Each structure stands twice: as structure tokens, then as C-alpha cells.
């Protein structure tokens, strides 16, 4: 096989392999946060004190880490707001979504999740008014933890 042909095949298979990895990765998992309807379907999530109590006993350093992590979570959730399933279905015509299983207690709940970060403005343009419960919950948790730390 000539050198030019070898280069051609190396490029072809590299491109194909990258594309395959990307496609499979986008099919089975990703980094985006779960769809916010989880919050709606999980009544215990609002109990934020129960949510962090185990970590609180480990001291200030850990608490800072928890706050750091929650802050990142809050920032991620800033634009991902609570939608009804009906709203999400409408939205799914305009953005790519995938189905994700979320464990709530012993139950597994299938929820739709955007494949990329969606801005609040985009969502509002597609489905009208929305409610950012998850962001609010994180804000409350951080507020409480901030009080503990001080």
C-alpha cells in the first residue's frame, strides 16, 4: 500500500473512531445535571438539612469542600430550571434530550435530560414561564451551610 493511501486510511479510521466514541458517549451518559423534574418528584429533596447532615459532622474543612461542591452544583443548576414533563416534551422538539434513570430512594425514575446546557432564555422562549426550584434549593442549602461555617 502506498504512503498516501496509508495516510488516507489512518485519517479515515481515526475520524471514524473519534466519531464513534463521541456518539457512544453521548448515548450512554454525560456530565449535564439531571432534569429538574427529579426535584419535583422527590419530596425529600426539599429537606436539605437531612441531605448534608452526615458530612457536617466531619469538620470545617469538609464543610468547605461540601460548600464548594454545592456552589458548583448551584451554578450548574442556575440555568436548569424545573419543568413539567409536558413542557419538557415540547422542549424536546427544540433541543436534543436523552432519557436518564435517576435513583430517588429505592425508586428509579426515568427523566428527560438535555444533552447540552440549555439557557433559561431558550427554555422560556420554547415553553413560556418556568420555575427554578433546584437553583433555589441549592441557594437555601448554601445559605444554611454558610451560617454553620461562620
Amino acid at each position, binding site marked *: 500500500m502506498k504512503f498516501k493511501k496509508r495516510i488516507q486510511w489512518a485519517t479515515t479510521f481515526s475520524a471514524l473512531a473519534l466519531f464513534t466514541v463521541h456518539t457512544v458517549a453521548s448515548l450512554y451518559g454525560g456530565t449535564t445535571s439531571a432534569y429538574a423534574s427529579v426535584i419535583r418528584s422527590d419530596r425529600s429533596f426539599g429537606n436539605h438539612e437531612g441531605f448534608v447532615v452526615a458530612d457536617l459532622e466531619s469538620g470545617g474543612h469538609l464543610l468547605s469542600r461540601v460548600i464548594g461542591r454545592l456552589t458548583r452544583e448551584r451554578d450548574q443548576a442556575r440555568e436548569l430550571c424545573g419543568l413539567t414533563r409536558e413542557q419538557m416534551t415540547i422542549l424536546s422538539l*427544540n433541543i436534543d434530550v436523552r432519557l436518564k434513570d435517576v435513583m430517588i430512594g429505592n425508586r428509579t425514575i*426515568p427523566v428527560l435530560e438535555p444533552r447540552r446546557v440549555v439557557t433559561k432564555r431558550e427554555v422560556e422562549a420554547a415553553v413560556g414561564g418556568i420555575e427554578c426550584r433546584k437553583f433555589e434549593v441549592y441557594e437555601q442549602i448554601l445559605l444554611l451551610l454558610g451560617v454553620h461555617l461562620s
Partner: protein
Amino acid sequence: MFMQTHSLSSAKKTHHRHAVRIQKTFYTILFLLLGFSLLAFFLPLWEPSLRLWEYYYGIYLIIALSYTWYIFLLLFYGDIQKKSHPNYAGEKISVIVPCYNEAPKLLQACLESIVNAEGEKEIIVVDDGSTNGIHKSLSRIGKKHGIIVHFFDRNKGKRAAIHYAVRNLIGRSKYIVTIDSDTIIDKHALVRVVGPLKKKGVAGASGDIRLLNEKQNLLTRMIGGYYWSALHVHRKAESAVGMVTCCSGALSAYRSSALRKVISSFVRQEFFGKRCTHSEDRHLTNLMHKQNYKVVFVPEAIAYTHSPSTLRGFLTQQQRWRRGFIQEALFALSFAWKNKPLLFFQIFVWDLMMPFFSLGIFFFLITVAVSNPLRFFVILLPWLLFVSLLKNLPAFFEARRKLPGLFLFSIFSIFVTQAQGVYALFTVKNKNWITR
């Protein structure tokens, strides 16, 4: 003797009934796939079936990806194989040109190109009851170049013309080449297209078809890209394992002994009880596969043909091709599961199943294009073009000037030829040639 003949004929009938049953089963499966893909698109509008779209989309992506890998692995395998077959050594070639209402000038150019082509040949033209007054000029050309010309008193179809020529007009030739009457062949095309037939186990070969009128307009440029991809990516890949699924009517060669064996069943082919009229090229190819022969693509054997230059003409041609494709794919499935499992898998999973299984994706794209054009043009269209480029990467290396036409055709095919495929599924029993 009579008993033996009777039992043979009874066995044939049983075999035929069995084949028809298999075809009907797969035909039904295609409708089920169509139904499933529609459900996958529409049902997620209701909450309980959210998961269906996800599964459907996942399966679609996996099948599409695996098909791309399959094609490229075959192409790679073809590239690393040594191309060895004995050179043409003056064996006699019978060239059959069936014609019907062909433009006299074009037919003359076609015949002259065959006369001027290399190789020891006899040329036979069968006029299939033309009504455009071509008789005189055809007789004159025949006399001038020593071409055997036969006229049917009425239109009987291309199959009948080929059958008649093979049965009654050709001599003791080793190879038979069929050429469309609107095709002009390259000087070396004949000797090159029969070359691989010298190799044991190969009984069919198809040439590289290029467009005479590619630069005529945007549509013909798109068709030019489509032809290139169909031949130099897909057919070339199939050829690596001797599994070409269609020898183009424009330029094909067959081993004479293999063709003679099946010529009667070729002309008598029925599909769901109706005599077949079109897609004779696909059927001849299938009959070679049925005899367990290999069929290959010969890119060095070049022929030039005309493609429709209007959208209406192109869609009409495609409609006939798609019906023929479904008909012949079902026919191939009825025997390939026994003697060519890879061919069976390829035809069923990728060639036949995918166009119908992907209908939900087609509806999704249409919905997005209509409801959110910005998203379609900014996100989905570039993505589709990227996938198209990936699927046609050989064009990037070997025929870059074909890429714009190929890109445009990819988009066109998503919205138009996909719908045509579904229409063809419902009207597959229609035997009209349409363009005739």
C-alpha cells in the same frame, strides 16, 4: 423419466412457494419496522412512552455507525488485497444493446463507441418495438458496422430483449456484456469489464458509470456526486468480498455459461404473482449470487451515460429504482440466508431495514426544520453535513470536486428520497416502467 421430471418440477414449485413465503414475511417485517419508527416518533408525546424514543434513537445510531464501519472495513480489505486476475486474451465477447425509442444520434454514438472499443466482439442490438421510426437508421448503422439487429414487432420489455438475444442471437462467446442504448463506453471498457470474469468463482462484473451531462445544472452535479458515492464507496466496498448487489444496466459483464443457465428464470420472474418488468440489472446480479458466484465492481471500465436533468425526471427514475430495489432485496433474502449469510445480513439490516426504520428520524428532522429553522440550519444541518462527509471520506481524498454535489444530494436525499422509499414500499407491486 416422466416420474423424474415430474418430481423435479414439483420440487421446484415447492422451492418457489417457500421463496415467496420468505419474501412475504420480510415484506411484512418492513411494515412493522415502519410502524415502530412512527410510534417511536409520535408516542413520546405521551408520558408513559418517554423511553421509546431513547431506545429507538440509540438503536438507529448504533446501526448507522456499524454500517459506516462495515463499509470502511470492506474498503480497507479491498485496498490491501492484491488485484490479480489474468489479462484479457482475445476471448469472444457478445455485446447486447437493448433499445426502445432511443434518440437516433445517441444510439449511433453508443454503437460507434462499442465498435471502436478494444476486444474481439460481436454486437447485437434488439429493438424492443420502438415507435420513433428508428428502424431505418438502425438498419443502416447495423449494416455499416456488421452489427446484428433484431426488431420486435411490439414492445415486450428489456428482459425479453436480453433473453431473446442470449437464446437466439449470440454465438459461442465466453462473456456477455449488456450496455444501455444511451451509454457511451470508453475504448478499454469492454476488455477491462470482462477481465475479472477470468478469475474462478466470479460471474458478474459492473463498470464505473459517469455522467455525460454532469455539468448541465445543479441537479445533474448532485446526481454526479451521488453516482460517485454509490459506486466508489458502496459498490467498491461490496466488491471487496464479491458481493456487488447491482451490476449497472449501463455496463455489465457476465460469464456466458452462468447467464445461459438462468436466462429462462430471468425472463419469467414474478413478484407477488405479477410478471416483473423493471430492475433487470439487479435481478441478473441476484441470479449470479444465487448460483454462488461472486460479482465485482471494475472501476477501470468506464462508461458514460445520461442522467435525468429535471427534478421530475430524476424522481420518476428514482421511484422505479426504489421499487426495484425493494423487490430485488426481498428476492435476494429468499436465497442468501442459505448460501451468502453476509449478503443476507447486509441487505436485510442495512440496505432494506434502515430506510424504513429511520422514518422516525426523518419526521424528527422535518419537525425541527419547520418548528425551529434556526436550530435546524445552525445545529442539525452542519451535523448532517459532517456525517455525510464522514460517510463519504473517500471522496475527500479521491474526488474533492464531487463533494459540493454530494453534500447537497445528502440533504436532498434525507427529505426526498427517504419519502420515496416509503412510497415505493406501498407501491412495490406496481410494474410500470414509468419513464417509458
